[in-house]
């Protein structure tokens, strides 16, 4: 059976970390450019202009888009018909993070939660965070990477609403989260929402939503309509880029859902900063690696 080599996974994990910090996905860039065209508020136009210029400077000069190297988060999606050593692949990803941190070098943004010591590798207990999934696609492994920035990650919220709170309760909670977060998560944000499930699943779904390209509606028309309604409402609040006023508070609202318990109505909200950082690669047993987003 075709084998996925850990060494190649290390190299790819390293490359993905650096790429995600330097090159924005095309859907994010397009959404920013569209926002800059639509924006009517002069101060907001100026800020969106700085963001777009920054993206260009980062790409042309090979600089990091943002100084926050984030918490390294990976998704390992394993297709059919492959041989692999699971624990070795997990170790390989962590090695890639360490190599990127030391060799580039990158700021180590990861520390112990109590004594706050920084291992200076961007790795530690359960970090990088790696989510393993088995998928139908055959013949390759997909590795996805998100260096999750803390300004927006600190703006993550969960509420166990009741069935009586209904859909209006969900809308109210999402809108209150966005207003309370104000300029702190670096708006215009990508608003990820997880509905239903259990408390942990709701937050996981909110995170799933921000892995989707900006402006890819949920395939369920009712959910897509809710996404569109919330986006319009949020952009009517006037918070604007960096919370300094304007028409552009969010680039997209994206929702994932799960069925839930008859007594429950969980809603999780996570905000992703305007950088919308993510990168992905397909790794083949013959040693080929295809990079994308």
């Amino acid at each position, binding site marked *: 059976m075709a084998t996925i080599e850990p060494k190649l996974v290390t190299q790819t994990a390293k490359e993905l970390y650096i790429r995600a910090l330097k090159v924005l996905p095309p859907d994010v860039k397009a959404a920013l450019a569209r926002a800059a065209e639509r924006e009517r508020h002069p101060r907001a136009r100026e800020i969106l202009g700085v963001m777009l210029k920054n993206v260009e400077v980062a790409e042309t000069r090979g600089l990091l888009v943002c100084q926050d190297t984030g918490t390294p988060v990976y998704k390992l999606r394993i297709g059919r018909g492959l041989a692999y050593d699971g624990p070795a692949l997990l170790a390989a990803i962590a090695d890639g993070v360490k190599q990127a941190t030391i060799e580039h070098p990158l700021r180590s943004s990861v520390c112990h939660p109590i004594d706050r010591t*920084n291992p200076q590798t961007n790795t530690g207990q359960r970090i990088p965070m790696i989510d393993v999934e088995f998928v139908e696609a055959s013949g390759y492994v997909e590795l996805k990477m998100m260096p999750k920035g803390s300004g927006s990650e600190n703006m993550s919220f969960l509420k166990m609403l009741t069935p009586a709170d209904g859909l209006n309760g969900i809308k109210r909670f999402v809108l209150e989260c966005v207003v309370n977060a*104000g300029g702190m998560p670096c708006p215009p944000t990508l608003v990820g929402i997880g509905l239903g499930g259990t408390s942990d699943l709701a937050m996981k779904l909110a995170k799933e939503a921000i892995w989707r390209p900006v402006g890819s509606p949920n395939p369920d028309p009712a959910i897509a309509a809710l996404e569109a309604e919330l986006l319009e409402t949020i952009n009517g609040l006037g918070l604007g880029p*960096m919370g300094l006023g304007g028409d552009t508070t969010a680039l997209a609202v994206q929702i994932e859902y799960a069925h839930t318990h008859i007594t429950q109505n969980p809603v999780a909200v996570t905000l992703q900063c305007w950088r919308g950082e993510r990168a992905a690669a397909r790794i083949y047993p013959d040693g080929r690696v295809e990079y994308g987003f």
Partner: protein
Amino acid sequence: MSKHHLTTPLTEAQVRELRVGDMVTLDGVVFGIRDATLIRIFDEEQAPPADLRGGVCLHTAPNVKKAGGRYEPLSVGTTTSMRMDRFTGGLLERYGVRAVIGKGGLSGESLKQFERHGGVYLAITGGAAALETTQIEAIEAVWWEDLMPECLWQFRVRGLGPLMVAMDSHGGNLYADVKAEARRRLEEILTRLEKRA
């Protein structure tokens, strides 16, 4: 709205001239500080080893490279200020800081400190670190390397900006104004939702 090109150190008179909505570009020295730096100064009561009088502090922890015994900036950006809110008064009153550069804004309590001592909050575009890095000429000094990357940094800057005066020494607070308006609109939206239900 007026534009100002300022060189550090800043005087109280210069800072008091700034009003919310003004744009500032900065030359000179900027000190990089962050959570751990401020915890050391104020909670562990270790006086900063640099003279911050008339100084400008930037909420940051940079990416750097050490070459030939010196640090070079690889990426200098700005972090969310609110986490460091409770240290604003001390920086102004005890150490004579005149301006804080950050993103996301500070609280009403910090606004009072800006009024009392003559200080200002300058908003930079968060996440725009590539551009910010091109405006950093050098890292001139570093103290408390054990806190890496949250050391006390001294940067030499040229044309740092655009910076927007978002909180001034006259009670002006752009964040509070924008948020108050957002809350007013939110209340309207929620009232409409409840009527429909």
